[in-house]
Every structure is written in structure tokens, then in C-alpha cells.
């Protein structure tokens, strides 16, 4: 189980006259295995989830993942947590499918056959075995996102943070990725505008103008989010 402690967290981009407070006074204690993050464009979702992986260090407050402070133990936090971005094209680093999945293990000290076995297992699981040696950029959008996910899973993280992983996909692929997310054994934190992905989630956080304005079951949270739109 992963334990995320968010304690009076705020964030400010820029300095001096250009400074903007985009997150303010956010606190939450997260232990559930499926956590959703919703809110309007610019409400602070990406800023928040990037902090959970120490991609961004909060300018106020503290975030701890399994007791590790993201500010001082960023590397350990990242070893624990993987991150799935919106655009798989910026996430795919190596030219061929198998090479990209293997990339995360370059410095792991595992032998080549061990790495190959793990890569094969993941490609098999995501139906990508037939594309092993193919150029990654020739995959379809949905397959690219599966590849990006496989590349995250190869290092066996306990927590996977996702920032709108289905936004660039068509309905069919978005549903397929949603299904794959549902089957993950890891803890998932998912920021999205595709609210139906959150149906089976344990807990959903609603952000509005940088503040955490609702925190509860998907039904409660989504109802709150819809009310925000009316005013």
C-alpha cells in the first residue's frame, strides 16, 4: 500500500511581479488504491500530480510518499512512483518498441536476458508482442500509450501517477486504456477530464482555482464538480 501525505501544500510559478499562486493550502492523506483528480482547465491538477512524483517541488508545505519527503528524497520517490504523461510521443525515448520498454532498466544492473524476459512479459500483457522490433512511432495512439505504460511498469513502481492519459485518444482507445488502468495492481492517481474513468475509483479530489474544494466518493465529487460549472 502507498501512503501519500499532502500537508498544507501551495505552489507559486515565477518570481517577483510575475509570480502566480496556482495551488494553495492543499492537504490530504491518501491511502486508497484508486484516486482521481478533476477540475477545470488551469485548476491545478497537473501541478498537483507532478508534485507527487517530485517532478515539481512545492514552494509551500510538504509532500511525503511512504514517508519520503519529495523535496529531499526525490530520487527515492521516483523509484517508487511512475508517471504516465498525456502525450506518449514525448515519453517514448527509444526508437523501437522493445528498446523503449527496456530503457528504464539500463542502469538496473540486470543482465540482458533478464531484461529481455521482463520486456517480453510486458509486451505480451499489452498485446504488443508482434511489434517488438517495430519503430515506436508507427504504433497507433492507443498502442503508444500502452507502450508508455509498459515502459513505466518495467521498473515495478508501487504507485503510478497519470496526467490525462486518455485525452489524445479516440473513444475506443480511451476505454481500452481505462480498462488497463482498472486492472493494474499498483496504486493509481489519475488526473482526467474523462469522468467515466473514475466510476470505480475509491476517492476523487476536485480542484478549483488552485484549491482542493471537494474530496470524496466519485459520485459526491463529480456532483460537486458539476455544480461548480453552473455558477
Amino acid at each position, binding site marked *: 500500500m502507498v501512503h501519500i501525505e499532502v500537508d498544507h501544500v501551495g505552489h507559486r510559478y515565477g518570481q517577483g511581479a510575475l509570480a502566480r499562486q496556482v495551488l494553495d493550502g492543499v492537504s490530504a492523506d491518501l491511502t486508497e488504491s484508486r484516486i482521481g483528480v478533476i477540475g477545470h482547465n488551469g485548476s491545478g491538477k497537473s501541478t498537483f500530480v507532478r508534485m507527487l512524483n517530485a517532478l515539481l517541488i512545492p514552494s509551500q508545505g510538504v509532500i511525503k510518499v511512504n514517508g519520503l519527503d519529495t523535496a529531499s528524497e526525490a530520487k527515492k520517490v521516483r523509484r517508487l512512483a511512475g508517471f504516465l504523461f498525456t502525450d506518449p*510521443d514525448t*515519453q517514448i525515448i*527509444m*526508437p*523501437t518498441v522493445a528498446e523503449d520498454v527496456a530503457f528504464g532498466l539500463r542502469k538496473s544492473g540486470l543482465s540482458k536476458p533478464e531484461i529481455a524476459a521482463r520486456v517480453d512479459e510486458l509486451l505480451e500483457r499489452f498485446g504488443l508482442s508482434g511489434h517488438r522490433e517495430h519503430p515506436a512511432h508507427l504504433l497507433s495512439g492507443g498502442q503508444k500509450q500502452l507502450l508508455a505504460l509498459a515502459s*513505466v511498469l518495467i*521498473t515495478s513502481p508501487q504507485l503510478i501517477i497519470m496526467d490525462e492519459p486518455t485525452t489524445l485518444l479516440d473513444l475506443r482507445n480511451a476505454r481500452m486504456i481505462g480498462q488497463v488502468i482498472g486492472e493494474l495492481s499498483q496504486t493509481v492517481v489519475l488526473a482526467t477530464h474523462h469522468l467515466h474513468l473514475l466510476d470505480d475509483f475509491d476517492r476523487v479530489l476536485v480542484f478549483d482555482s488552485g484549491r482542493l474544494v471537494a474530496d470524496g466518493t466519485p459520485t459526491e465529487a463529480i456532483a460537486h464538480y458539476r455544480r461548480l460549472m453552473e455558477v
Partner: protein
Amino acid sequence: MAIGINTLGLYQQGSSVLHRVSAWAKLIGLVVLGAASIWLQSRWWLVLAVLGLVVVGYLVAGFPVGLMFKQLRPMIWLLVFIAVMNWWSFDWQRGIAVPGMIATLVAAAGLVTLTTPMSALIDVVVRAVGPLRRFGVDPERVGLTLMLGIRCVPVVAGLASEVREAQIARTATHSFRAFAVPLLVRALRDADAIGDALVARGFDD
């Protein structure tokens, strides 16, 4: 969002001799050719002969010759410029030899990347740089930097043509600033995103 990895110069599976030769041999061959180019350049017909050999290399690897021209296309105007400059300031022989040598080197480098998986190339570089570790060089990092360099060339080229299309679609003009500014913004933004992805995937040192 369309920052795809282009087919340009990236590994294409195959079983030819050139695919099977070790990455070491191919990289050493490239280095030798690079070193010899200074000498080769003084005889225009030698340059053409070596270029001919590279063409044969493409055929042996099972690629159409068109693929070689595809590697050279992005720099065609540069080559023409170099040819004209050399012809004008020296003689027609140099006008052939100098751009011919550049084209030969680029085409040969393209042939190596087309027949060698990226991970094999990085492994060679990481090993070759290994002895420098005691001087504080991190071989993995050198290999990674090189790989990112190779990866970014087609990316930027792809972005450039996209920005160009968007510009023509919107304004039907060819202003340089209207081209350079969005290109720079997008290249930086994508570089930022790739940087994030690298950090998220554990390459943060």
C-alpha cells in the same frame, strides 16, 4: 503533440551483412572514413568512388537508393551552396569534392544508424567512453546525450514542417519571424516534456 520519431535515419530491421556486422566495426568504419575525408577530398573522383561504395552499401542492406537521398534531402540547399562557393572561389573539382564528401559522410552515417539498433550504438559509445570514467566522465550520460541528439534531429525537422504548414494555412505568408517563433516555442516545450519524461523514468542525474 506530433513530435513523432521520424523514420529518417532510424534503425530498420533486416538480416543483411551490414545488419549483422557489429556496431563497433561500423562505428570504427565511420571514424576512419571521417579521418580519411581530408585526404579523399583532394581528388574529386575518389570522393565520387566512395559515394558509389556507400550507394552499394544501401543496396546490400536491402534499402532503395531513394532512402539515401532522403537522408540528404534536409541539407540539399546547404550542399548546393557549398558547391557553388567552392566552384566560384577555387575550381569545379572542389565544387564536386567538398559537398560530395559531406554528402558521403552523412549518407554513410545514415547507413550505420539504419542498420544498427540505437541501444547497440549507445552501448558502444558507453563502453568506448568507459576509460574516461576516472576523469569524472559518466559514460551512461554521454551515451544518453548522444542518443537524445540523434532523436531530436528528426523531431525538430518534423516540427519545422508542421509549423510551416500551420503558418501557410493561417496567413499564406513566409515571414521568417512567424516561422521561427512558434518553432522555437514548440521545440522548447517538447524538449521540456522529454526532459520530464527522462526524469520520471529515472534518468535524473
